[in-house]
Each structure stands twice: as structure tokens, then as C-alpha cells.
């Protein structure tokens, strides 16, 4: 590190330990805000909205929603050490800031009427680091939340990276042979009169299976005469879209210029009984396994081609809380694909009271270098909490979410959540489970990290067994 950098680091670290002016929530924990959040995140646990008001709990992942500024101009806090540090970094050329890690600890569920205060302290400035994005400094803050009685109810550690973007080398792209135009897109399907219904269906968002109008026998690929009853009168029916994976491969070599790697070709067995060659999408190759439940999703590799593809089937919500004693280290949660829609991103930003323009204004997102608006951290947090809670059941509680932030979740993409149970233990008579969590999208990992859940145990419930 140069002298200049050492001096900069010294100046930055001089602010470590400083505290910003405390932020008092504008409103106490309240049902309308909870309801808006649950609607936007898609969390349907009745304990948040459907029980007697005295029993209502605020979703844990809403912790930092309560003290957010709201849709008003932010007043400048001269005491905010992060602002001071960012100003210094900006002056030194480290002008781009991205979120790097977020860790929330929830001491207990919040109840209606609690009024939160957040106190943020600058806790660390890292040495100069070089990452894939460029070189710069990680800046960490810790916000502690207390209620009106001064009781600590949770904390939020947030780490950002202020950096100088690294220069993109154009080397390599120059030497590459240009791909002939006809090899830039996937092969078109060969069609004949008797198979056109299938491809017409794809254009209309319907997966069709040939069905004999005489005896209702299904066939794929289509036949021209029903071998069962002899009829030439062949129609089709729409598939439900539910399927299981029968076999799959991952082509690696030779590279096809029109394919995006990695990709999976699978043979799926439709609920109706026929099979189909397709692509398995919205999950990583290593997450694909024979027998996995799948659901239909039409994809357009290019504007002139609509293909029926399959992705992990959205798991059903678990209405009965899992028994802690039945859980096993190493077990995996079902994959959960969620489409990143404008509705989800904008709805999530507003419901988490985050009014940064990059989350609701396309032009602002484009200025930030992305093609559309993208998901804010609090929405991601909420969806992660919802994912593990829907698996665990209504009585499990999220105690901690500790995640590293990666590729942005841009509208049009799909985020797929996955998790593995890595440890379980009893703490104060309750069952604690830590899950390794991964949320991936087409650009890579959106977040990776851990979530800790607390399960009621029979001992805690007073059971004698």
C-alpha cells in the first residue's frame, strides 16, 4: 500500500466507533405496514396478520423497515460517520458503492405498538482490497434497535464496498472468429403439417400433447395415425405443465456458438404420461437430479423462438411445523424459483419503505448500469426469510440472516432459492437450525450465506416425551 493509501486509511479509521444520530421510527410497529410487507413479499404466515392483535408478531425480516426514512427528502446527519467516510472515499476516487454483506440478528419477535430506535455505529474500515469489481475499502456499520423501554430487540450489520471499477480488458474478444449469422441462434424446429400444432401452442403459451380424437390416446412425438384405434382424426390437449425429470445431460464440448453455457438437456415425464426433450432452467447444473418435480416455463432464447422448458416446481407451503427431532444435518430444502417482476421489485421496495430510485425507476437503474430496476436488500432478506419459513412451518422463527450480496436481481430474471441444513442444536430448550442459503439468478449468485431458524421443541412445549 502506498503512503497515500495508508494516510487515507488512517483518516478513515479515525471515524471507527463514531455513532450517528439515533433514528426514531415515525410509527410504532403496526398492522397496515406488516400487511403491506406480507403482501409484497408473499409471506402468508397467519401469525403476522390473521391472529388476535395481541398475538400478532411482526415478521423478523422487517426489523430495519420501521426506522427507514420514508418517501421524503433525507435530512443530512452531520454526525453520521458513514457519510464522513464515504465523502473521504469519494474524494480519493473510490466513488462506486455496492452492498457487500448484511447480517441481521433478531432477539425476539416484535409486537404491535413497539416503537423502535436505531443507533448506527461505524465499526470497521478494511484494508485496501481487490475484488472482481475493482480495488477499494469495505466499510461496516452496526445498527442496534431498541424499543421504547430501551430493550435491545435486534441488530443489523451492513458492509459496503467503495471501489474504483477495474478496467475491463477487451483482450480475447478481438481474436475470436466471428460466428456466422445462422449459427448465432438456436436451431429452428423442423415442422410438418402434423406437428405444427405443437409449435403454434408454444407461441400461445400452451404445451400441447397430441391426442387421438377417437380413443384419446396421447402421443409425443406426434404420429399421423393412431396406432391404437386407427383414427387419422388427431387433436391435442394442453398439458398441465407438471412433470418429473427422467434423465438429463450437461453438454460441454464441442461448444455451440448459439448456446449459453452451462445448460442442461433433460427428458421430462409429463403428468399426463408422455415425455419431452427440453431444457431444465432456473437452477444450477449441480442442483439437477433425476426424479425432481418440475414445472413448465416458456422461454425465448431469441425473439423468434419460444420453447417449452422446465424448472424446479415451486414447493408447497408447509402448514405444519416440522419436528425438530426429525431434521437431519445435510438435508436439502426444495429449490424455489421466483420470477423477478417489476411488481415484486417495486412492491418490495415500497413495502420495505426503501425509496431509492434504482428500485422503482428504470432510467435510474440504467444510469447504474443495469437494464432494469433491481431488488433492494430488504426485499431479498424478506424473501429469504419467507423461503425457509415456508419449509419449516408456521411456528419456526427466523433468528438470524447473514448473507453476502452478489449479482443484482434485475427485473426479467428469475431468482432460485436453495438451502442445506448444516447444523442443528438445542439452545435454551429450543431447537436451532442453521441453513446454508444460496439465491442464484442468471448472472450468478444473488446472495449466499446462512439463516438460523428456531423451532419449538416438545420439551419447551411442556411435553413429557
Amino acid at each position, binding site marked *: 500500500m502506498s503512503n497515500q493509501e495508508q494516510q487515507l486509511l488512517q483518516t478513515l479509521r479515525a471515524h471507527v466507533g463514531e455513532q450517528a444520530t439515533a433514528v426514531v421510527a415515525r410509527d410504532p410497529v403496526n398492522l397496515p405496514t406488516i400487511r403491506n410487507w406480507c403482501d409484497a413479499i408473499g409471506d402468508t404466515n397467519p401469525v403476522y396478520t390473521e391472529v388476535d392483535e395481541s398475538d400478532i408478531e411482526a415478521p423478523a425480516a422487517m426489523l430495519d423497515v420501521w426506522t427507514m426514512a420514508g418517501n421524503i427528502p433525507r435530512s443530512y446527519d452531520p454526525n453520521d460517520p458513514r457519510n464522513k467516510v464515504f465523502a473521504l472515499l469519494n474524494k480519493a476516487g473510490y466513488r462506486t458503492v455496492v452492498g457487500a454483506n448484511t447480517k441481521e440478528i433478531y432477539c425476539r419477535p416484535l409486537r404491535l405498538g413497539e416503537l423502535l430506535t436505531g443507533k448506527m455505529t461505524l465499526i470497521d474500515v478494511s484494508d485496501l482490497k481487490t475484488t472482481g469489481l475493482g480495488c477499494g475499502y469495505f466499510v461496516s456499520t452496526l445498527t442496534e434497535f431498541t424499543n421504547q423501554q430501551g430493550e435491545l430487540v435486534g441488530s443489523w450489520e451492513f458492509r459496503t464496498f467503495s471501489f474504483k471499477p477495474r478496467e475491463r480488458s477487451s483482450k480475447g474478444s478481438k481474436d475470436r472468429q466471428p460466428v456466422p449469422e445462422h449459427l448465432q441462434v438456436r436451431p429452428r*424446429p423442423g415442422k410438418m403439417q402434423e406437428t405444427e400444432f405443437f409449435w403454434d401452442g408454444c407461441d400461445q403459451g400452451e404445451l400441447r400433447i397430441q391426442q387421438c380424437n377417437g380413443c384419446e390416446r396421447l402421443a409425443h412425438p406426434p404420429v399421423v395415425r393412431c396406432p391404437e384405434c386407427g383414427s387419422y382424426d388427431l387433436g391435442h390437449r394442453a398439458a398441465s405443465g407438471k412433470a418429473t425429470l427422467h434423465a438429463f445431460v450437461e453438454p*460441454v464440448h464441442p461448444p455451440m456458438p448459439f448456446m449459453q453455457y452451462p445448460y442442461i438437456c433433460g427428458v421430462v415425464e409429463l403428468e399426463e404420461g408422455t415425455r*419431452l426433450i427440453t431444457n431444465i432452467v432456473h437452477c444450477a447444473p449441480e442442483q439437477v437430479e*433425476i426424479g425432481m418435480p418440475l414445472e413448465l416455463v416458456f422461454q425465448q432464447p431469441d425473439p423468434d423462438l419460444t420453447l417449452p422448458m422446465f424448472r424446479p416446481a415451486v414447493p408447497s407451503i408447509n402448514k405444519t411445523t416440522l419436528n425438530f427431532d426429525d431434521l437431519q444435518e445435510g438435508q436439502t430444502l426444495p429449490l424455489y424459483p421466483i420470477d423477478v417482476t417489476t411488481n415484486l421489485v417495486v412492491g418490495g421496495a415500497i413495502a420495505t419503505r426503501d425509496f431509492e430510485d434504482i428500485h422503482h425507476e428504470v432510467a435510474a437503474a440504467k444510469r447504474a448500469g443495469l437494464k432494469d430496476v433491481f431488488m433492494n436488500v430488504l426485499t431479498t432478506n424478506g424473501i429469504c426469510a419467507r423461503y425457509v419459513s415456508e419449509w419449516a412451518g408456521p411456528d419456526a422463527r427466523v433468528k438470524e440472516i447473514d448473507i453476502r450480496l452478489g449479482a443484482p436481481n434485475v427485473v426479467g430474471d428469475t431468482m432460485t432459492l436453495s438451502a442445506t441444513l448444516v447444523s442443528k442444536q438445542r439452545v435454551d430448550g429450543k431447537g436451532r437450525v442453521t441453513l446454508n442459503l444460496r439465491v442464484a439468478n442468471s448472472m450468478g449468485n444473488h446472495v449466499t450465506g446462512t439463516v438460523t431458524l428456531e423451532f419449538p421443541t416438545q420439551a419447551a412445549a411442556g411435553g413429557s416425551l
Partner: protein
Amino acid sequence: MTMTFSGKTAIAGIGATDFSKNSGRSTLRLAVEACEAAMKDAGVSADMIDGMITYTTDENHEIDLCRSLGVEKLTHFSRIHHSGGAACGTIHQAAMAVASGACNYCLVYRAFNERSEQRFGAGVQERPPTPTPMDVDFGWSSPFGLLTPASWVAMFASRYMHEYGATTEDFGRVSVAARRHAANNPNAHFYQKPITLEDHQNSRWIVKPLRLLDCCQETDGAQALLVTSVERARDLKGKPAVISAAAQGSCDDQQMMKSYYRKDISGLPEMELCADQLYRNAEITPGDIQAAILYDHFTAGVLPQLEAYGFCDRGEAKDFIKDGNIELGGRLPINTHGGQIGEAYLHGMNGIAEGVRLIRGDSCNQPQNVENVLVTSATAVPTSALILTQDS
């Protein structure tokens, strides 16, 4: 009921070009060279040849070969479809033609510059303007990037592994055996180049679950064989390899390389259909077979073949192989020339020639007391097979 041609014909001559990565000559020239060599091996002259058979995928017409070979009259000429599935089908056809009297001396050939010109492994990338039924068929797979023979076979392999617990190491053992055999064969691509299971496991992925060393060795070259009646063969130079049975097989919901739509895709029903015909017509059982040439475009296809032809039960090929049964000295040495993995990928025709050498007793890796040899053709396509037997 047995087929009337069983045991009535024999392969009396074999001939091949060199196997290379770039032949430097036309496939017509390769075909003619191989035919000439087969004729010389048998000791027949051009004026005796009256039948010619090849694959529909061969680009050389028999009439063009005739002009260079000096063959003036043909009374039988035909072609067999379905790529590597045609291999033993050409002999099946020749045996029927000779036994029926349609011709007396029938040349069977296959020639290609499969390495230097039209490499199958490159996959299907062409975009024909007017689709043929074949393009309609590819339409169910190509738009999804399922484009290469390796990927088509790997799909079956993935299901087979799932159902029977076979692993990439089990596939690797097939490759190791082939390369050990090829190491003794001066005509093989991999002469003196054996591999270990570790080499196999370290080789790169082509299409998961298949690695580079699971794939055959794409080749330029040609192979020809001469089929005639057993009586005529006895008057020729060499020892006849009697075609005691030959058969073709295509089954329910059959597809080209992609028969994924039938209930069970971890077995090979078209091979079971061939096996039934072979054993019935040759009047032998799997226990009477001392050596086999099992089509090995990809290692993974060898396992279900061992099961379909009755050498072990379904799902047990991995153990049969692990126990050393496919090696020299084992219960059933296979692909003693090195197979298409070790010698050359010649669409199965070089394997038939090795079957003949095993009967003659002059394979580079000759097991003792070979009475009957099984030769198979490609998996995953409408296929064929034959049994070659010592002349009694």
C-alpha cells in the same frame, strides 16, 4: 423357426485401409482400396464379384466402386439404414442375398473421412431450408441444444446410472480394457498407448456424464468384407468365418439415437430382439460365446449390451466388468482389436473384421479356443448383430 440362411454363408475376406486422422484421399479411393484388399485376402477376382452392399450413410455408390475395381456385372446391390446400427445389417443382407442366390460373391464396405471432413462429434448444426422427416425428428431435440451423438447416448447413460448405481468409473473400465487391447494392435490409433482408470477420471467432460475417454476415436478410413457361401468359401484362400446367425432389430417407439419416449430407457429392447434371433438361429446360448465385439462408440453403451445379450443380468454389467470378465483371460474378452475407442471408429465395420480374425485365430489379442464370436452394432438406433462361428 430358424432363418433359412443361418450357417449357409461365411465371411471369406477382410480388407481395410490405414486408420488415420487425415487420409489425404477421397472416400471413394478409400472404399476401393479396402475392397481390393478384401478381394485379395479372399483370393477372388473382380469378375467374380456380383453383389455390393453398404450403408445409406456412405457417400460412395457401388457403381462408382465398380468402375475402379473392374467389376462389370452386379446382380444384387442394396443399402442399410441407421448409421452405426447398419454394421452387422450389411452382413445380414449379404448373407440373405447369397443364401437366396441373388448373388454369389458380395462385397460389403464402409468408407469415410469422418475425422478430417465430416466429423459426427461436431453435432447437428445445419439449418436446412425445407425440413425433411429427419429434420422434424431433430426438431424435438436440436432447439434444446441436444445436438451430438455423445449427448444422445449420455441421456441413456444418466438413466442407467440412476437405476443401477453405475458410475463414471464403471464406464472408465470399458475404456481401459479397450486401450489395453489397442496397445497390442499396430493398426490401432492407440497402439502402445494404454491408459489407467485415473487417466479416464482425469479426462475432460464432453457431455456429463461422459468424458473424453468414454468416446470413440473418430477416424478416416475404410473397411470391406467379402461374403460368399460356406461351400465357395472353403475353396478360397483363408479359413471361413461362418455366419451362423445375423439379425436386425427395431422396437416400440423406436427413434434415431433418441428412443427416450418408451417406458424403459435403461435397457436395449432392439438388442434383446437381435439376441433372441441370434441364439435361436445359431442354436447356441450366451454360454457358447467365447469373445465379443460390442459396439463402443461410447463406453456407456457397452454395459446394457452385456445385459441384452445375456452375459449378465440387468444392472449387473458394472460388476461383470469390474470382475475382469471383459479382459483377456476373462469370461468374455471384448473388443480385442481395441474397439472403436482404441483401434478406430469405423461405424462398426472394423469390429466385424476383428470377429473374423478371432475365428481365424489371428487377432493381436487372440484368446484360446474361440468357437463363436458375437458382433454387435450401434446402440440407441435400429440395430443389428451377428454370430461368427468356426467352420465345422
